[in-house]
């Protein structure tokens, strides 16, 4: 996808005296429209209390429209073939972070074991806190999503979703549920927490799908 400087909208009007820190011409091509580079920062933006969840307590389950619903423990998940994501992440609150590394297992590996049924079109991702987020199945298959427990060279910090979280880096990060507990496959879109609270159903940063109606 080619990132573009956002086109002026109907309400476009230059702000007197505003020049901007980064000029449009030398804007980093990795930066989606309306985003800024958080550089070394990694803001924490959970709505709920960070749970005290240990690796021993953590489980991950896939069910719903699958032939073989199942639950993985920490050790069972770690026995699967490892996979990692190296690249950029984008938050709807307008920061982006470049070149991060997450280590874990591709969601494709878990889904292959659970065997989605033909009618499955969407998923609801559940966190151990009760947080939910909804995604089209196509957005979490084909090497586009991971269950991760490593950030850079260490364990994923609790406030960033440790011991394990979902990451779906091509969408705004509220889709990447922290403290991931499970995925339910459905034959319809069932809006999750932020989707019910005014956010866009899909959340593509390059299309600036931030809020309902975008």
């Amino acid at each position: 996808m080619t990132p573009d400087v956002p086109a002026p909208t109907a309400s476009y009007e230059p702000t007197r005296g505003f020049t901007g820190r980064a000029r449009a011409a030398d804007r980093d091509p990795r930066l989606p429209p309306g985003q800024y580079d958080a550089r070394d920062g990694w803001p924490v933006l959970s709505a709920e209390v960070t749970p005290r969840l240990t690796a021993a307590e953590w489980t991950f389950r896939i069910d719903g429209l699958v032939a073989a619903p199942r639950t993985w423990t920490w050790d069972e998940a770690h026995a699967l073939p490892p996979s990692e994501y190296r690249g950029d992440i984008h938050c709807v609150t307008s920061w982006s972070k470049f070149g991060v590394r997450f280590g874990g297992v591709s969601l494709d590996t878990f889904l292959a074991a659970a065997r989605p049924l033909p009618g499955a079109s969407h998923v609801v991702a559940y966190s151990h806190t009760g947080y939910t987020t909804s995604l089209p199945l196509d957005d979490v298959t084909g090497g586009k999503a991971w269950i991760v427990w490593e950030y850079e060279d260490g364990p994923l910090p609790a406030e960033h979703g440790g011991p394990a979280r979902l990451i779906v880096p091509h969408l705004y990060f509220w889709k990447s549920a922290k403290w991931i507990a499970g995925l339910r496959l459905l034959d319809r879109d069932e809006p999750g927490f932020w989707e019910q609270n005014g956010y866009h159903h899909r959340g593509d940063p390059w299309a600036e799908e931030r809020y309902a109606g975008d």
Partner: protein
Amino acid sequence: MTENPQDVFVPPTRFAVPGRIAVSGGAAALWQRALITDIRRETPAVSTFRLKVPDWQGHLPGQHLMLRLTAADGYVAQRHYSIASAPEGSGEIELTLDHVPGGEVSGHLHTVARVGDTVEVRGPLSGFFAWPGDRPALLLGAGSGVVPLMSMVRHHRRTGLGLPLRLVVSARTPEDLIYADEYADETTVVLTRTEGRLSAGHLAPFLGDGGRPEGGWEAYICGSNGFAEHASRLLVEGGQPVDRIRIERFG
């Protein structure tokens, strides 16, 4: 490990916090011109910007908006800001902003913007941190985290709500305390440079058997992530249910 397909997963919901209000997607998607009608210094690093937004649909205390600045060549920068004013604002809303060192948007607003300029806003956004005034509210804020909480305090006063509302606000020094002149009996101020950080003792009067209102508190925490983690832990240790704690962290 084969299981029955009908055996559907029920997520553990003990931490789950539902949203408070339905949000209008249409209004949130629309950028609107906002005229700066007043700029008021709160502390050396914090100012309040009053905006006239002709088609503002109204908001609830605790909601935020997105503010956008546009350069002559079309380059834009946008940030989320909490709304400081109560909903009873006659078509004008207020934002209270830290001057973030090197901040692209806050820097412009603090050093270049003046009354008569226009910016663009969209919102109000998100129903999660909103307080409709329907439950007793225990509010914990640090630094400019007090901003959305002050909207709740102002709403509580202007509407004469009988519901209990308490605000615990933390600032480094008296000079850093935003809205210092507005606090009354509902507010406990914690000055961290002289008293140390917020402690269980500050919250004890609200969390004991005698301090809890009927039906319990709906707790709202706003501030840096460090403050949010600390304050939420204190609340949980003090017996506040996790599903009655809402957190807005500065990213």
